[in-house]
């Protein structure tokens, strides 16, 4: 068992027992389900929209080279600097270099999972830059020195009381149980940081190749400020973010809002197509786009799972996943938790170390139904399992299924197996639930159904006679 797998098992055992966590997460998501259903029902056809979204992303991803070149060409024509970074190290180096050359001291960030993926904050802080997350949820988890719990709702696992205690100890604020007061405490702190920052780092939700613009979706206005006030703006985005046309946003902005947050449209959807132009009042003098591969091309090279790159990081699959809801976002140990994370992490970080995530699913398929761009999520988990077993089967599974084949190929042996099982069953109560119980994985929490005195095939035979 790999180290990440052992850690997953350990944390899963812990969190699944935590009934407070279970009910808190369920309650947090109840409102989301209601709103998501309400707004998707307003679509003339949500299913038709999903089909079209799949088609558009299919076009974008399957002509990725064309769209990336077009995107970069259009962006550069408006004075944007485009940096192509094959891996996280190259991206980090690029951003550090921009910061150094421009004598940057303080950096403000708006929410970006891609920068989490390359551990950008650690690299910047290690070199003495002050880095502040401005999204409220991100700011809270940054103060706690922990990764986001969820890709859209980073602090959804925390109660207001915990946040009040955190602000009290980290910011010296007075304790309060009022979410509005807590939000205003963060707003005041952040206003100062915004005005002081030399550099703003954002992610992007979409990159429109037709116009060379990035699109950022948010609710708080922190991305607006991050991309407006500092003198340098750096946007970090994965190469899969492309959309061919501006018009495609007419579909994707509402779908992202509805799937991601249960909204018709989020508070701010901002397109940025360059640094401040000569006739404009304000805006950063420099705009850099960091295009990141970081093994996305490994997913691209898998013809079966290529559609995993359609992902718009809305988090809908996490919100409906019973595994996610029971083990929580941190248990995965990945930048991208939940079903889509379990699909792509083995590609991004190594199949043998991360295959356990694909096994840790009942394959219920709720994720696939929720996905606005129709990624075949739960079947990809199955394909990851196959790829892992093909390369390096687990020894005990090999033995188990070798025995299984012998039994299932011969109805005679199958019947014999049943008879032996009935004999074994008589002795099972002696060890049931104890360490000696070979079926302990089941019986520790669940009663075992008895084998019937006569099987159906025996009854069928008797009936025919």
């Amino acid at each position: 068992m790999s180290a990440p797998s052992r850690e997953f098992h350990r944390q899963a055992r812990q969190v699944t027992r935590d009934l407070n966590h279970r009910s808190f997460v369920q309650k947090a998501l109840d409102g989301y389900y209601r709103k998501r259903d309400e707004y998707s029902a307003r679509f003339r056809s949500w299913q038709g929209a999903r089909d079209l979204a799949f088609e558009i992303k299919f076009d974008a991803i399957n002509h990725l080279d064309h769209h990336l070149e077009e995107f970069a060409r259009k962006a550069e024509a408006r004075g944007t600097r485009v940096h192509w970074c094959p891996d996280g190290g190259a991206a980090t180096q690029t951003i550090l270099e921009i910061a150094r050359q421009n004598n940057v001291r303080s950096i403000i960030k708006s929410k970006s999972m891609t920068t989490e993926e390359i551990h950008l904050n650690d690299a910047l802080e290690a070199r003495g830059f002050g880095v502040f997350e401005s999204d409220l949820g991100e700011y809270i988890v940054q103060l706690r020195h922990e990764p986001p719990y969820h890709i859209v709702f980073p602090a959804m696992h925390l109660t207001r009381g915990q946040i009040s205690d955190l602000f009290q100890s980290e910011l010296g604020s007075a304790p309060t149980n009022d979410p509005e007061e807590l939000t205003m405490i963060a707003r005041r702190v952040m206003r100062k940081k915004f005005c002081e920052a030399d550099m703003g780092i954002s992610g992007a939700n979409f990159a429109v190749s037709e116009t060379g613009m990035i699109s950022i979706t948010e609710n708080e206005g922190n991305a607006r400020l991050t991309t407006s006030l500092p003198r340098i703006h750096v946007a970090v985005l994965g190469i899969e973010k492309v959309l061919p046309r501006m018009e495609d946003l007419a579909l994707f902005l509402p779908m992202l809002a509805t799937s991601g947050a249960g909204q018709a449209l989020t508070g701010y959807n901002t397109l940025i197509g360059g640094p401040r132009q000569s006739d404009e009042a304000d805006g950063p003098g420099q705009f850099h786009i960091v295009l990141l591969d970081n093994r996305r091309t490994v997913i691209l090279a898998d013809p079966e799972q290529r559609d995993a790159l359609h992902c718009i990081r809305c988090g809908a699959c996490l919100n409906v996943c019973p595994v996610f809801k029971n083990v929580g976002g941190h248990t995965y140990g990945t930048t991208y938790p939940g079903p889509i994370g379990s699909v792509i992490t083995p590609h991004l970080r190594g199949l043998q170390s991360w295959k356990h995530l694909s096994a840790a699913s009942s394959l219920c398929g709720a994720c696939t139904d929720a996905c606005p761009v129709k990624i075949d999520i739960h079947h990809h988990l199955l394909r990851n399992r196959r790829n892992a077993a093909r390369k390096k089967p687990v020894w005990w599974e090999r033995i188990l299924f070798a025995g299984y084949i012998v039994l299932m190929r011969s109805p005679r042996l199958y019947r014999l197996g049943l008879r032996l099982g009935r004999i074994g069953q008589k002795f099972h109560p002696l060890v049931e639930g104890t360490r000696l119980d070979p079926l302990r994985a089941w019986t520790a929490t669940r009663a075992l159904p008895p084998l019937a005195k006569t099987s159906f095939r025996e009854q069928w035979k008797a009936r025919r006679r």
Partner: protein
Amino acid sequence: MEGPPQMTGKETILGRVREALRMPAVRKPAPSSAAHKPHEAREWLPAVGDTFAAQLELFQKNAEALKARFISCASLSEALDCLAGLAAGWKSVGMHRASLLEPFATRLQDAGVRILYTDGGYAMDDLEATDAGVTTCECLVAQTGSVLVTSASSGGRALSVLPPHHVVLARREQLLPDLTAVFELTHARFGSNFPSMLSFITGPSRTGDIERILVLGAHGPKELTILLLP
């Protein structure tokens, strides 16, 4: 995977992409669906009503559901009074040069409100200290209750998001039915010369990051007022 050192990042990534795409994807769009037609999105998105009146009503309903303030004014003087009413207690506002805004600027100045124009540069702290930002917009969107601002139409990037209250002035003919129509408009208006920033503002700034409870005014304006002029 690593390319030879003389390759640029661009060559490396494009090389990987092209190599990866040599094998066609297994899952394809359903064969029945025709080639991608951008206007098809409209067929699936929420309905907006056929008449201007229906669309205006939808805009108001959507905007108000998002806790924006929407005021439809029958005349310019009514709109001027309306803004003056909102401005009670304001010391300074941020604005930009636009013919639509001129009478409003005069009225506010008469009421003793100091005006900071963002055109041609300003001090960030001064704008931060204003009581409101008053801007025009590119259009209003009935389908979503949104206002589209751009760095060209709305006094730059910060004016519509830094002050605690954003007041948008729009004329009735600026109302568009849906997002598809917006992109048709921006293409026609800007061609390849887009402003560096366009932003759909849909309600005041908000967050649900604490226990998924809605709080307005997370980082941007706590209030959004849309004044519709005849």
